[in-house]
């Protein structure tokens, strides 16, 4: 008699879980049949557009909407800001107009009579001294633009620095980037009497209906949220935004459905960004290369709130015995930040592990040996250790390593390699599930979840089908509606564990019920039964087909609900490491950096879908290459505007810029036994430091600020020659 226990099968014994399975919704996405919020446009829909502030800081002194309301085709005009109010960044929404056609809405925008009193602004996020000296008023009061985010001390840095063999001081930084979701933020809102139906581009299907309650005075039960597909979120789409509320209000006022999606410039200006961080670092080691002291002050901006990267992740991954860390936030007239894939970590990694690599160079050590030597300062040395070995082999580190700037070759193009480590949680969020086994044997799984790239549908289907011993297509998965059982938002790499854990447990419980019914009917021991190949088996003996067993549930489906996973079920876990190595070719006459190769070695516990997991890492590496080499928000100090808020000047890499990507999962049995752990975020953390370190290795000079543009590379080379 086998014990019935919630859990995964031993490593290697699952039929679908852990396999390479293509995304179930790949074909509808690739063929354009998948309908996004942006595609929702039923007949009768009105088109809404926003008037936004062209100024970084201004007071609204006059607003007259009468002429706009009289424009042909315009159906409703609502103010989103009041006269007398200050707008604090370019793109601040002021008026929303709904019209029969987009052109009429634009005509309406042009007819708005509006006047601003332009006020002084500050947008130079790298300039700490400038921020301290800036003369900026807010609501008539002079304001201080810098905010101390505290200092934390451990050990005795001063003594450690005195006793250290090597001390390195340096400046590092990462510019602000935006999320650049291909599908901009926005929604389609339609009222059906008192009920509101919204197609919302969201990472938070179950958590957004409630956000309409207060602004609209509606009850949550009357709000239906639908998001079958999302064209990118990366942490920026958890909320119902003020423009979504405006969309619902315009729909109410006109009695017609309304769609309101941000245009690209506004999307980039106001729908989220990743805060910048710049750091002055002092770091020291002893004669053996063991890091003994760290002292840093970092600053940056997240817009009007005046924050930057959290203190707690500094220095990143390595935690030396003596450490002082200080942070200062700068209030700027830039758009507000939102969570960006692994909040805080990529920036902290970029300014910490570059400084540590510079210290290694100063100590005359191979970067790999230096990092290895300091693994005891990390939280998971037992993971980083073997991962570094694997990565070094895949990169051929020993052959390719050379001291900084000594790679040889007569031409202007120099090669180099670099590495970095990262860490992330990735524990499961709280999700519920309903599973139905119909008398005909078909299976339904329902969750109020979403797919931001995880492959949510596919992974749920794999787990359910695997548990019932069925082929993948026997399971129908429904997600994307808040009318399905409540699921957590997709943030923090929580989704894969959050959805597969409850699905596994609940499917197991449903299977056991069916086994009991079959046991009674066919007179075998229910606990001896297992499901495989569409049949129930008692040991090697076939008992009945799945259909025969399912028919025993009676005329109506067997329906089971399951709640969130608990730690003791051991279906899921949290806390991963991860190692990345980069190889670059730098043209020292143009400053152009080309990726040659990236190696990512990642632990993620039990892998649900190997193909999708690898895709997640590819995506993360590409996003990492983007912010390392090309991507940045450029604020113009003079005008206070985001001057590259378009897809030409805001550069992104193309396939030709990516190089060779090598992904390897670290999955010994003890890792497998931890269960499912989230993967979306960790691999996007290390590229900045790894690539910057590779560039320093290639050209012998640190290019301090990401992205590593030709200008920054040439300026660094020139600085080194002076």
């Amino acid at each position: 008699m086998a014990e019935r226990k919630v859990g995964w099968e031993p490593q290697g014994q699952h039929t679908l879980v852990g396999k390479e399975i293509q995304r179930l919704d790949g074909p509808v996405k690739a063929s354009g049949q998948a309908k996004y919020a942006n595609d929702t446009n039923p007949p009768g829909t009105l088109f809404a557009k926003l008037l936004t502030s062209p100024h970084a800081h201004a007071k609204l002194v006059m607003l007259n909407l009468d002429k706009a309301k009289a424009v042909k085709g315009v159906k409703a005009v609502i103010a989103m800001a009041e006269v007398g109010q200050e707008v604090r960044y370019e793109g601040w929404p002021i008026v929303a107009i709904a019209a029969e056609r987009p052109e009429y809405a634009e005509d309406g925008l042009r007819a708005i009579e509006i006047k601003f009193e332009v006020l002084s602004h500050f947008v130079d996020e790298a300039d700490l001294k400038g921020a301290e000296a800036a003369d900026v008023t807010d609501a008539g009061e002079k304001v201080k633009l810098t905010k101390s985010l505290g200092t934390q001390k451990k050990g005795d840095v001063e003594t450690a620095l005195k006793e250290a063999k090597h001390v390195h001081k340096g400046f590092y930084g990462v510019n602000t980037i935006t999320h650049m979701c291909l599908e901009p933020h926005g929604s389609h809102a339609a009222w059906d009497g008192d009920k509101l139906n919204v197609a919302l581009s969201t990472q938070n299907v179950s958590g957004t209906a409630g956000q309409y309650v207060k602004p609209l005075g509606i009850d949550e039960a009357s709000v239906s949220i639908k998001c079958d597909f999302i064209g990118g979120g990366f942490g920026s789409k958890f909320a119902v935004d003020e423009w979504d509320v405006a969309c619902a209000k315009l729909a109410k006022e006109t009695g017609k459905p309304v769609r309101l999606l941000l245009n690209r410039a506004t999307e980039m200006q106001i729908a989220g960004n990743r805060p910048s961080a710049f750091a002055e670092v002092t770091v020291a080691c002893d004669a053996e290369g063991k890091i003994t002291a760290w002292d840093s002050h970092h600053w940056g901006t997240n817009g009007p709130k005046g924050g930057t990267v959290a203190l707690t992740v500094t220095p990143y991954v390595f935690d030396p015995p003596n450490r002082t860390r200080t942070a200062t936030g700068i209030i700027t007239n830039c758009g507000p930040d939102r969570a960006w894939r692994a909040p805080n970590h990529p920036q902290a990694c970029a300014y910490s592990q570059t400084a540590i690599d510079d210290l290694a160079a100063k100590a005359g050590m191979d970067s790999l040996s230096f990092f290895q030597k300091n693994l005891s300062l990390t939280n998971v040395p037992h993971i980083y250790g073997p991962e570094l070995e694997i990565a070094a082999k895949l990169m051929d580190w020993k052959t390719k390593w050379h001291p900084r700037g000594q790679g040889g070759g007569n031409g202007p193009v120099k090669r180099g390699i670099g590495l970095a480590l990262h860490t992330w949680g990735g524990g499961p969020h709280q999700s519920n599930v309903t599973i139905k086994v119909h008398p005909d044997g078909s299976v339904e799984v329902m969750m109020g979840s979403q797919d931001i790239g995880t492959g949510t549908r596919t992974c749920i289907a794999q787990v359910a089908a695997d548990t019932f011993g069925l082929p993948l297509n026997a399971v129908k998965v429904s997600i994307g509606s808040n009318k399905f059982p409540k699921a957590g938002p997709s943030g923090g790499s929580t989704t894969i564990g959050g959805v597969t854990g409850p699905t596994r447990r609940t499917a197991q419980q449903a299977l056991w019920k069916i086994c009991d019914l079959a046991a009674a009917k066919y007179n075998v021991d229910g606990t001896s039964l297992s499901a495989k190949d569409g049949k129930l088996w008692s040991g090697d003996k076939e008992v009945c087909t799945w259909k025969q067993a399912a028919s025993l549930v009676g005329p109506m489906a067997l329906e089971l609900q399951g709640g969130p996973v608990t730690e003791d079920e051991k279906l899921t876990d949290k806390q991963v490491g991860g190692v990345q190595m980069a190889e670059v070719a730098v043209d020292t006459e143009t400053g152009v950096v080309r990726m040659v190769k990236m190696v990512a070695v990642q632990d993620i516990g039990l892998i649900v879908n190997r193909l999708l997991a690898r895709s997640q890492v590819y995506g993360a590496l590409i996003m990492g290459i983007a912010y390392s080499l090309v991507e940045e928000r450029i604020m113009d100090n003079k005008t206070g505007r985001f001057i590259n808020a378009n897809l030409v000047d805001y550069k992104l890499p193309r396939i030709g810029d990516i190089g060779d990507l090598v992904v390897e999962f670290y999955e010994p049995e003890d890792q497998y036994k931890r269960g499912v752990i989230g993967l979306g975020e960790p691999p996007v953390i290390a590229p900045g430091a790894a690539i910057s370190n590779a560039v320093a290795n290639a050209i012998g000079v640190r290019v301090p600020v990401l992205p590593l543009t030709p200008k920054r590379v040439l300026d660094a080379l020139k600085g080194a020659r002076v």
Partner: protein
Amino acid sequence: MKSFEYARPETEAEAVEFLGTNAGQTVVLAGGTDLVSLMKAELVTPSRVVDLKRIPSLREVTRIDGGVQIGSLATLSDLAQHPLLGGYRSLFDVIDGVRAIQIQGSGTIGGDLCHLPNCWYFRGGYGLLAMDKGVSLPEVGDNRYHAILGNSGPAKFVNASRFAPALIAWGAKVRVISKVDGQKSLSHNSQSSTPNLHEEWLPLEYFYISPKTNAQGNTVLKPGQLISHVWLPDAGNMTSATYEVLQTEGLDWPLASAGVCVDVEGGLVRQARIVMGHVAPTPWLANDAARLLIGQSLNDDTAGMVADAAVSQATPLSMNDYKVQLARTAVKRALLKSVGKLEM
């Protein structure tokens, strides 16, 4: 986008008729890869758009007058495949550098020559000269992509054309057409082969201007005029190349470029023309530098020496000193590439 009239002429004469002569009122539509964006942003707000795509003569590539005549509506893909253009390597370098097949398929050579500057202040609505309350924004603001040569006047933007450096190096001319009574001629050598149609040929190097006012635009084209054709002399013994410094492998504007033509005989340079792009409000001819090559063999050292000379007069702005190095590299590499000596 504001409403506009749409006209679709089928002959050149009809086109100039539709074009009228009211400044700022009428624009021509070629591939539309940039115009449509400019109209969406309401930076260009014409009352009439004249679509040239239905005029067959504007897309032809023919051998004529000891050279090759290219219709301004020929797309980059048309050019890439054309047998008459095999000898003009520098044009292929440009087409290849565009990378994006969508732009290669719809972008036209005439559209490229008339491409308005990519200066982000211009694109942000501050006008061609990007003046704000008497202050030059590129001078005091973010000028990382702006001019390093010819920037002492009010114009600080860089000419956006990717073909112009190569074409000017080849000694290309453009045919400018207008309505017979519509415009005074650009020069005295004008003629008219078609009734109603005024045509004149202008060396491309005289086509661009560095404007003193926003209204001047960045070319000599006056309201009612358009470029119908480009003419290139026979390649003869000349070899050519374009080198663009591109940050990415995708659709991206060059940070600096150079188009060169050289005639080498017996290992020595007999003639050389060097034109830099994306460094000044107009394509920048480096004739003095090119002259240094005459009688020399073209190698790493001489190319480097000439490249130094080509940028020796550079006057970088506060943030674009690095572009001097890029322009220098573009010249050096274009020269080496033109004689098959660029090893990368």
